[in-house]
């Protein structure tokens, strides 16, 4: 009998605490966020304010970078090159992070200054590229490389519209994808293969120079 009571008690307590905790969590979260708001509105919490300031500064920096050279497309290209380097280094985890970063910079690409025709083309390119970047942010390295191949085509097509202030090399490895081949873009003429990484670091050739 006492055993039964004990079990019943434990189950009841577990049940009550579970529901109580889940409700409470939601509530305190809400409270916290409203508190933060009021704190920020008032002249209270300085560290908060500073933090916010530095965040704003970051955004400013990013925008500035995007304004350099050929507008926002440069930010996208930089993120693409970082992603490429992670794949060259066979670094799955880093490529995941950089895939997410690239998806974000693609999403904030400003296409307002282009013609209607270019806009619709760019929109399609971005939509496709974002999807590949998102997949890269959650896949194993073999999948990342599959998506990177199509992403590279998207990037080349993007540059065809946006142009670029730097010299970019389109490089090609004929062995990737069961010898169907795969191309990628690089800022350096020297071959560093993102499809095979250390396995075949120097497999490939420059097939086009984009200025």
């Amino acid at each position, binding site marked *: 009998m006492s055993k*039964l009571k004990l079990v019943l008690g434990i*189950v009841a307590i577990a049940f009550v605490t579970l529901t109580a905790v889940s409700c409470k969590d939601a509530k305190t979260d809400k409270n916290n966020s409203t508190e933060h708001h009021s704190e920020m509105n008032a002249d209270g919490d300085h560290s908060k304010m500073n933090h916010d300031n530095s965040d704003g500064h970051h955004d400013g920096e990013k925008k500035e970078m995007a304004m350099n050279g050929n507008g926002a497309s440069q930010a996208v290209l930089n993120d693409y090159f970082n992603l490429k380097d992670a794949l060259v280094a066979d670094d799955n985890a880093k490529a995941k992070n950089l895939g997410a970063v690239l998806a974000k910079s693609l999403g904030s690409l400003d296409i307002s200054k282009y013609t209607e025709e270019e806009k619709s083309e760019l929109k399609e390119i971005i*939509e*496709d590229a974002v999807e590949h970047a998102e997949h890269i942010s959650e896949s194993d390295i073999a999948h990342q490389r599959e998506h990177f191949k199509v992403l590279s085509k998207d990037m080349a097509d993007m540059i065809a519209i946006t142009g670029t202030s730097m010299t970019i090399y389109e490089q090609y490895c004929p062995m990737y994808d069961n010898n169907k081949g795969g191309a990628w873009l690089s800022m350096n003429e020297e071959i560093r293969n993102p499809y095979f990484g250390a396995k075949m670091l120097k497999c490939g050739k420059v097939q086009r120079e984009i200025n």
Partner: protein
Amino acid sequence: MKAVKIIAWIALIAFVVIQFFPVDYNQSETVPDTDFMLVNDVPSDIQNKLQVSCYDCHSNNTQYPWYSKVQPIAWFLEGHIKEGKAELNFNEWDSLSSRRKASKLRSIVKQIENGEMPLASYTLIHKEATFSEKEAQRVVKYMENLKDSL
């Protein structure tokens, strides 16, 4: 012994209670004009295969077997179907740009070739959804041709 009985009762009650939780069933009577089969000239055997193997999770209409309406199986399926449709919805095929169609076709080919789709958890129950080697080759060939014709 009594404790086991109590726990069994609680589990049973929980099981009954969750049956009353609502589930968003993926069902639709109409097939939109943008459907893959309507905008492409798909041979009937491939149509059948896609319907049986893919459309349950990659279209707006799932053929639910009876046990799939039992919780928690229904929740499990709901999540899968939502994810599947977000990735690819054959019913909305023609609303994609050529570029994205090419990307999707490339993924379809890769997933079938690598045996990643249909999901093992799906073919476990739907034996008929499995691709034989011949069927896989035929569908892959069709999808590749379609991609080249875009």
